């Protein structure tokens, strides 16, 4: 089989390191840009993001569902002004959906079309295994971009262990070999963000390869700022009340603890209903609490008395 060897303009080691240092943003810059992108970070995240660039390691984010792990990756892309490539993991995810695949239909069509014209079979073969017939999947796309995109590997714990092992290999070499085409080296090393909900214990090898950040529920102050940036038109006093109330709900024994997304929904609902002060309108508050409570059990637990008690603490 003829081998058309592709050698993409890969950055050699020293040059790459050089580039990396030149592009490293300071911690303040990162926080500012994150805020500008609509993500209010905690104290430690900007340092972790800075380290990612400095050490060239992927970042593993863990945390409860709904604390905004995916948002971090989106904001990171905005910080560096690059694209975001997302790979959603699931059980049974394989290389052909994650890495690359040949476009068989087009190949067949091409063969049929040339059969009649009597072209040389060897040139036909060379042609159909060329770049034009290659379908890029997220992982391949990420290493073939020039602008160091953010590669988000979402919910890695849902993928099988075999896929995790394969990913580990890719993350250390940043090159892919396609038998018909040759080895493709990364043009630039993407910034890799992995998220996990810990439905399965990840391998130690992968954990050690990555920087780690645990994303927690925001405290009242941070949540207030999140509401103010994400729900325009909220008064500061109201945002503070909402944040305190949500904190109260989280401390209650609820089955499904409300995340940041739920808070934002609720804030939007209250703003939409033109509530200025939670104390003025306990009934609306109770009615709209369903934005936060997503199971039947929780809703049954939150009687009017409970929400009144929580409201009392908010003032």
């Amino acid at each position: 089989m003829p081998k058309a060897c592709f050698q993409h303009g890969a950055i050699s080691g020293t040059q790459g390191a050089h580039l990396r240092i030149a592009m490293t943003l300071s911690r303040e810059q990162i926080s500012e840009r994150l805020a500008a992108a609509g993500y209010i970070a905690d104290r430690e995240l900007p340092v972790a993001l800075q380290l990612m660039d400095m050490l060239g390691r992927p970042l593993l984010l863990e945390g409860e569902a709904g604390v905004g792990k995916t948002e971090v990756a989106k904001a990171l892309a905005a910080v560096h002004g690059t694209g975001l490539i997302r790979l959603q993991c699931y059980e049974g995810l394989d290389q052909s959906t994650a890495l690359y695949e040949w476009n068989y239909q087009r190949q067949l069509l091409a063969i049929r079309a040339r059969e009649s014209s009597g072209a040389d079979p060897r040139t036909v073969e060379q042609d159909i295994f060329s770049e034009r017939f290659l379908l890029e999947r997220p992982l391949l796309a990420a290493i073939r971009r020039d602008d160091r995109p953010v590669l988000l590997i979402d919910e890695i714990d849902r993928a099988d262990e075999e896929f995790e092992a394969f990913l580990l290999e890719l993350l250390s070499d940043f090159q892919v070999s396609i038998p018909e085409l040759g080895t493709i080296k990364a043009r630039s090393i993407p910034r890799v963000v992995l998220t996990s909900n810990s439905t399965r214990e990840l391998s130690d090898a992968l954990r050690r390869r990555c920087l780690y950040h645990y994303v927690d529920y925001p405290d009242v102050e941070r949540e207030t700022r999140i509401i103010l940036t994400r729900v325009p038109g909220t008064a500061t006093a109201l945002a503070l009340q909402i944040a305190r109330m949500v904190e109260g709900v989280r401390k209650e024994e609820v089955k499904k603890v409300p995340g940041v997304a739920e808070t934002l929904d609720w804030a939007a609902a209250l703003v939409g209903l033109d509530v200025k002060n939670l104390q003025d309108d306990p009934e609306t508050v109770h009615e709209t609490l369903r934005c936060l409570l997503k199971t039947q059990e929780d809703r049954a637990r939150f009687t009017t008395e409970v929400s009144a008690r929580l409201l009392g603490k908010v003032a």
Partner: protein
Amino acid sequence: MCCLPPEAGDFGDAGTYLAERLTTFMRTLRNNAFAVGLKESEDAARVLASPLVARPTGLRSALKALVCARRSDWLKFDEVFDAFWLGRGMRRVVPLTSRAQSSKRTERRQLSGPEVEQKTEAGLGEQVPASGEEQNDSGSSPARMEGASRRERLAETDFRKIHDPKAIAEAHALAARLARRMRTRLSRRERVRAKGRRIDMRRTIRRNVSHGGVPIELVWRKRKRKPLRLVVLLDASGSMSLYTAVFVRFIHGVLDNFREAEAFLFHTRLVHVSNAMREKDAARALERLSLLAQGVGGGTRIGESLATFNRWHAKSVIHSRTCVMIISDGYDTGPPEAMAVEMQRLAKRCKRIVWLNPMIGWDDYEPSARGMQAALPHIDLFATAHNLKSLAALEPYLVRL
């Protein structure tokens, strides 16, 4: 040693001094069960050379992101960092031989050979972080060792001394027998395999598109095998100290022999010990365990520990064929209602709950411990086990689960 504050002369060569301190810090982390290797040390040195260090919080956050690998590390890191760099709230680990001999008669019998003694001396010399309240009244009341206390205790129970090759071999044999006999069930679900019993039509067609639709490469499906997973929660509180040794050995055997198993230790807190206990060499496993299990031998908070388990571990550890084995005497210092709630949650999550209680055989014991009463309705098998023999006698019941 490493906990001394920097002296005036040291600043002459700040760079070397810092580098040395960093190395020591890395060693401290390793002793605190962080997975820190050469690569991490190298990267830490790079962090130290970067402008991040200019800010006091910068170094902390950077090292935190670098050396942590899981949530438990994340929660522990600040304490270790403060203890090391700021000299705050730390204490030495008490030399392990002296106290243990006077307080634990039964376990001393198992002290075997001079090489164990030796190891104890050479072992952990680093400091461990202390919780603030503890320091104020350390060594005050001897009464707190009796029964269930709410306070954590220093690592007086040293797991290393239960390293007795013969007993370990026996425990392993039992665990191996169980592992063989607790059935692996075939589930109705199938998944793609290299060799199988049925052709996966959809995937076969898909894969052979490249051959123009002629099925040359076949894709097979096979039924999934779901091995039973055993999750052991061992109560390591003071009241259980007579039995801890037996069960720790058993757990080591379980982790070695079962395809899927997890182990937790609880007293006033819950500790995930699978990784430490998976060490093939029993002596090393026990050594790592004693480092992890600070506060062993103190009081019990079963309800709280179960809550931690349900909240943080159950999701990743329990699947549809999981048997949870709780080994505890049921003496809980927390409110029984809390325990009932947590047991109910646990029962909802997993297939079967076995509760082994070493105290049942005793004449004056009735599961009066109110916590135990609260837990009983949710338990599938409630049985006695206080040594390996009685554990072996349970085999037929366990196998049937």
